[in-house]
C-alpha cells in the first residue's frame, strides 16, 4: 500500500506571539517549531496502516528548508520516505493543498493521512481541499479507523455524538485527537532518520485565493473582577451574572 502523510512544521504551542515587521505574519526569531500535534496522530495512523497491510509511508511537507526538521521527526517515528515540497513563500491553504495533491497523485497514493488542523493558522482546510482536488472522499475529525477490503470505516466527531462513515479507498483520512497514541521515536529511529535522504521537489506555483492583510494581537482584556475569596462570594457572583452580565 502506498501511504502518504502530510506533516506541517508549526510554532510550538508555548510560543509568545509577536507581530513581524511586515504586519502580516509573526516574528520568527526565538520561536521553536515542531511537528503539528494533529499530524502526529496522522503519522501514527499511517504507520499502523503500513504495519497491517505492508507498503511504504511517505511523509510530505510543503515549506522552506526548516520543514526538514519536522520531516526528520516523521522519519524517526518510522516513515520510510520524506519529501520536501520546497517553497519558502507563505502559501494560503489552497496553495498548500494544490502542492500536496499534485504530489499524492504523482506518487499514486492509496490512502492519505492529514491532521485536523495546523496549529498555526488553525484553518482546518487542507485535507478536504486535497480530497476534492483529487476527486476522492475525505473524512474529517476521525477518532477511529478500520480498513478492510479497500474500504475505510471511520468514526468522526460531530456535535453531540459520533457518526460512522464508510469510504472506498483511495481517500483522505483527517486525524483528530483520540485516533491513537502517537509513538515516541526510538533511539534507533532517530539515528536512522539522520541518515535517510530527504527528497526535494519544487511545487508548481499557484495564485493565492486568500490574502492576509493584517495580523494583530488580541485586544488586551482588562483584568476581570475578583468577586471574593471564599464561598460567601457566591452570592455576589450570582447577582453579577444575573443583573450585570444577564447570562443566568
Amino acid at each position: 500500500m502506498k501511504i502518504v502523510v502530510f506533516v506541517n512544521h508549526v510554532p510550538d504551542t508555548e510560543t509568545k506571539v509577536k507581530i513581524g515587521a511586515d504586519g502580516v505574519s509573526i516574528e520568527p526569531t526565538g520561536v521553536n517549531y515542531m511537528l503539528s500535534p494533529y499530524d502526529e496522530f496522522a503519522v501514527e495512523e499511517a504507520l499502523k496502516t503500513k504495519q497491517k497491510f505492508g507498503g511504504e509511508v511517505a511523509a510530505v511537507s510543503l515549506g522552506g528548508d526548516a520543514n526538514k526538521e519536522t520531516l526528520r521527526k516523521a522519519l524517526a517515528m518510522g516513515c520510510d520516505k520524506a519529501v520536501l515540497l520546497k517553497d519558502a513563500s507563505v502559501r494560503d491553504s489552497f496553495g498548500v493543498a494544490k502542492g500536496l495533491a499534485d504530489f499524492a497523485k504523482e506518487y499514486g497514493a492509496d490512502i492519505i493521512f492529514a491532521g485536523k488542523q495546523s496549529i498555526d493558522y488553525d484553518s482546518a482546510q487542507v485535507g478536504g481541499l486535497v480530497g476534492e482536488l483529487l476527486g476522492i472522499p475525505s473524512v474529517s475529525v476521525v477518532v477511529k479507523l478500520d480498513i478492510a477490503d479497500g474500504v475505510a470505516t471511520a468514526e468522526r466527531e460531530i456535535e453531540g455524538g459520533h457518526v460512522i462513515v464508510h469510504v472506498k479507498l483511495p481517500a483522505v483520512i483527517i486525524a483528530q485527537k483520540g485516533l491513537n497514541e502517537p509513538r515516541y521515536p526510538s533511539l534507533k529511529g532517530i539515528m536512522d532518520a539522520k541518515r535517510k535522504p530527504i527528497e526535494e521537489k519544487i511545487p508548481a506555483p499557484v495564485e493565492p485565493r486568500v490574502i492576509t492583510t493584517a495580523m494583530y494581537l488580541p485586544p488586551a482584556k482588562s483584568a476581570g473582577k475578583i468577586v471574593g475569596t471564599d464561598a460567601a462570594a457566591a452570592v455576589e457572583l450570582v447577582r453579577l451574572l444575573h443583573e450585570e452580565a444577564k447570562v443566568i
Partner: protein
Amino acid sequence: MKILAFAEQRSSQFKKTAFEVVKAAKTIGDQLNAEVIALVVGDKVQSIAPQLGGYGAAKVITVENEKLEKYSTTAYSKVIAETAKKEGAEILLLPASAMGKDAAPRVAIKLEAGLVSDCTALTVENGTIKAARPVFAGKGFAELIVATKIKMFTLRPNVFSAGKSDGSSAPVESFSVDISDVDMGSYVKDVKHTGGRKDVAEADIIVAGGRGLKSAENFAMIEELADLLDGAIGASRAVVDAGWRSIDEQVGQTGKTVAPSLYIAVGISGAVQHLAGMSSSKYIVAINKDKEAPIFSVADYGIVGDAFEVVPALTAEIKKLMGK
C-alpha cells in the same frame, strides 16, 4: 449580488448557527446591496424553511431528498456548489460547525473560491469583505480578504448574534440536485450521548472542570451545576488524559472550540492551549484557589477560593434565584 447562507438543520430542526449565518449574511448584504438566499438541505425540511425570513433571508431554497437526511460530505458539497452556481451567488457563508467545516473546503474547490475558515467577524470596507479570525490559538488575530470571484467564509458558532426573528417569513423554492452519481458513504449508526446533556460545542452555558477537582467522582458537583443551568460540561486536557472525563468534552486547542454566553472554569489553571478553545466566550467565570492562575487574566469574574466550598455555595445560590 447574491449571498448564499447555508442554514444547518438536523432532524428537521434548525441549529442555532442557521439563524446566526443568515443574520450575518443579512448584515453584510445590506452593506453590499446584496440579496440573502438561505439554503436548507435535508429530508422533509419544507415546513421549517420560511422562518429564515425573520433573520433576513429574501428567499429560501430547499433541496430535499431522503438520501440527504443525514449529512454526507460528497452529497452535501455537491448540493451546496450546484445551488450556488444556479443562483450565481458570489458570497457563501457556512457555519464553522462539524458539518460546515467538513463541507466548505470541498465546495470551495468546486467553485474555485477562496475560503476563510472560522471567522469571528466580517466587515465591509469600500465594498470589500474583511474577515477576522483567531490564529496561533487565539494569541493573535488575522485579517483576510478573498481574491477570487466567489468568496467563502465559515463563521464560528455563537459569535455572530442572530438576534430575534422579526417574524417575517420568506418564500420557499425547491431545487433538485441529482446525487445519484455521488458516493454517499453509508452511515451505520449515530452514536448519541446518554443523559441528554448538551454538547459542549453547542451549549450556551458551560461548566468546565480541571485537575483542581482532584478526582472523577468530584465532577458530580460540576454535573449538578451544569444541569441546573441547562448547560454542558467542559473539561481540560489534564482530566481527559487522566480518564476522568470523555474526550468529547475537552475544550482547547486539541479539543473543541467553544464560545458560550457563560463559561465557568473550575479548578482549571488556564494554560494557553485551554484558553485557545474558550477565550471567545462572552462571560468567563474562574474559580481557582491560586490567585496567580492565568485563567484569572481572561475571566470577567473570579472567585479565589476552594472549589469544594465555592461550587456548592454557587449551586445553592442559583437554586435560590431560580426559586428551586
